[in-house]
């Protein structure tokens, strides 16, 4: 696999200035940064919407908005967070930036296609923005028949989601081929960093699941445009069919979100506990197993939607099995920590929080997977708590961890560790304060997607709102701290964390072509601890 050797004197990939040089670039690192900027902006907007909702929910009764505004905010919050932020989240940002370097390549397999994916993403964003004049109020799940009768702009939102899905498919294809074909000599599958395994598995899901929801959303658009009633019972349509299609994608998609986060954890834990990762193969293959199993559980979202009882029992059982590969990972992480020399740097703090929060998220999924219990809990705040523990406590926290971990590499600057670590506690405490009350609310019967509630829920809702604002401050200052470091931070060394993966063996920030010479790999990247010195010599 000979590559063209860099013709120019090596310069940092950040060297060329000007917005055009960024938008026209096919450099995977620059595309990763573009994704980082857009996804984090989406996070900010979605976050502001969430805070507005929490403000309204702090007291019973309506204070700041009418119920319709609330519904719109809720829909936009969900759609922006899912389609614009978290799905492209770690895969498209850190996947783009880090994955090619970690496998010892100069770029992804199809650089131009990679740029095209981003352009398609922008197009999707633009289409969604077009609909903001009269934004949709259906919730991010677009369930018909409501979504085909409401007179808000459902069409732009669904079309936007379709286009974003296309971008996601192209990115997935690109990464799969990259991992298969662009690895450096000696980079065998079992020498790949676990982050690569995770992104690879997530990419597989992206490719297989996304077309299903894509065409279903187009069917929904057709239903609205032609007035067909494809999913509307009054016109002979079958609404449960939509739910089947929707969740055939949208359950696997939660693993597109969480697998990359698990990959980041698997990178950070060994580095900051100075120990080899425990159970490499188990972690690697459990990623693939999760990807596979995630496709056979979707109907657990239909337990109360007139799913047949037989199918319900089967899907309930299958859902429990997802917990197995997930638990395998958790135990291996814990074993990695055992007797390690733990350094509580910011990325490590977030990773430890991840394990803690994700266990809660996963365990609350199990009662939801039991049909009888779910009849009571479905569409309550319990579900809201569950998926925020997994998505936010899992993926968002690891996105922040990844930002801190790779920040020196990406920008060439060190962030202020004290501020970052201090703000972590805002995030961690704020998060639990927000979402633990929601479990209790849900069990008590508080339905989700309501702008108002009964007085007896007031105290817990108030706590939740206070938590949300603590969390908001935490995120805001954390990101501000990173941005300030761009100007004020001290210059980062090539390898501030003494990590072994390839991206840390090159300059910070990397040069345009990553490597001066493509390395030959002789061992896996997790020989921390006693073996570390030996490893350094062999590299």
């Amino acid at each position: 696999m000979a590559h063209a050797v860099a013709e120019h004197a090596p310069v940092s990939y950040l060297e060329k200035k000007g917005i055009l040089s960024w938008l026209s670039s096919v450099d995977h690192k620059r595309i990763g940064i573009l994704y980082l900027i857009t996804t984090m902006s989406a996070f900010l907007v979605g976050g502001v919407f969430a805070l507005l909702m929490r403000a309204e929910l702090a007291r019973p009764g309506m204070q700041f908005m009418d119920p319709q505004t609330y519904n719109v905010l809720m829909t936009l919050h969900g759609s922006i967070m899912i389609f614009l932020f978290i799905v492209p989240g770690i895969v498209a940002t850190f996947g783009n930036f880090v994955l090619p370097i970690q496998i010892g390549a100069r770029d992804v397999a199809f650089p131009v296609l990679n740029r095209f994916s981003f352009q398609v993403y922008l197009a999707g964003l633009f289409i969604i923005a077009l609909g903001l004049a009269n934004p949709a109020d259906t919730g991010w799940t677009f369930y018909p028949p409501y979504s085909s009768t409401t007179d808000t702009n459902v069409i732009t939102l669904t079309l936007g989601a379709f286009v974003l899905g296309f971008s996601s498919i192209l990115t997935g294809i690109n990464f799969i081929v990259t991992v298969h074909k662009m690895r450096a000599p000696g980079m065998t599958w079992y020498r790949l960093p676990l982050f690569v395994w995770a992104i690879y598995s997530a990419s597989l899901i992206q490719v297989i699941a996304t077309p299903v929801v894509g065409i279903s959303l187009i069917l929904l658009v057709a239903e609205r445009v032609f007035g067909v009633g494809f999913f509307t019972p009054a016109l002979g349509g079958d609404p449960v069919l939509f739910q089947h299609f929707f969740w055939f994608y949208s359950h696997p998609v939660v693993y597109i979100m969480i697998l990359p986060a698990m990959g980041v954890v698997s990178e950070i834990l060994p580095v900051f506990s100075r120990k080899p990762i425990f159970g490499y193969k188990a972690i690697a293959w459990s990623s693939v197993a999760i990807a596979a199993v995630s496709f056979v559980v979707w109907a657990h979202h239909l337990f109360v939607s007139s799913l047949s009882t037989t199918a319900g029992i089967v899907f309930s059982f299958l859902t429990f099995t997802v917990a197995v590969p997930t638990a395998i990972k958790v135990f291996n992480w814990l074993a990695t920590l055992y007797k390690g020399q733990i350094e509580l740097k910011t990325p490590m703090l977030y990773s430890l929080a991840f394990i803690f929060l994700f266990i809660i998220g996963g365990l609350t999924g199990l009662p939801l997977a039991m049909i009888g219990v779910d009849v009571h809990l479905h569409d309550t705040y319990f579900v809201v708590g569950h998926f925020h523990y997994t998505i936010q406590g899992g993926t968002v926290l690891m996105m922040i961890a990844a930002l801190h971990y790779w920040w020196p590499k990406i920008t060439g600057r060190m962030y202020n560790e004290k501020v970052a670590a201090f703000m972590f506690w805002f995030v961690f405490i704020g998060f639990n304060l927000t979402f633990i009350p929601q479990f209790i609310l849900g069990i008590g019967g508080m339905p989700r997607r309501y702008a108002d509630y009964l007085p007896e829920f007031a105290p817990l809702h108030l706590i939740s709102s206070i938590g949300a604002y603590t969390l908001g401050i935490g995120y805001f200052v954390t990101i501000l701290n990173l941005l300030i470091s761009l100007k004020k931070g001290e210059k980062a060394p090539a390898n501030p964390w003494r990590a072994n993966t390839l991206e840390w063996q090159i300059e910070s920030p990397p040069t345009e072509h990553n490597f001066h010479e493509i390395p030959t790999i002789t061992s896996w990247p997790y020989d921390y601890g006693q073996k570390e010195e030996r490893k350094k010599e062999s590299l």
Partner: protein
Amino acid sequence: MAGNGKSHVKEMALTLAALLILTVITVWAAHVNFGSLAINIVIAVLIATIKVSLVMLFFMHLRWENKLVVAFAILAIPFIILAIGAIIWDTTIRVGVEKVFP
């Protein structure tokens, strides 16, 4: 590249002939009753699947492809069977189906 490999035109011409014959059989089979509706449909889909396999094997070169490409080519098939199979299965036994769709 496979540039200097031997030509497969002959195999492909035979494939076309087979496909055309199978098309005739498809149309013919549609006018014959094999016992029940379900059997008729299964037969039609079966013939179509044979045709599709021929196209994939010969026209799309899967017969001569390396294993990795073949693996990706057939990657979708289990998921297609899963989606079609599970959703139809649930639809046919869903409670209330006979009320909504009398």
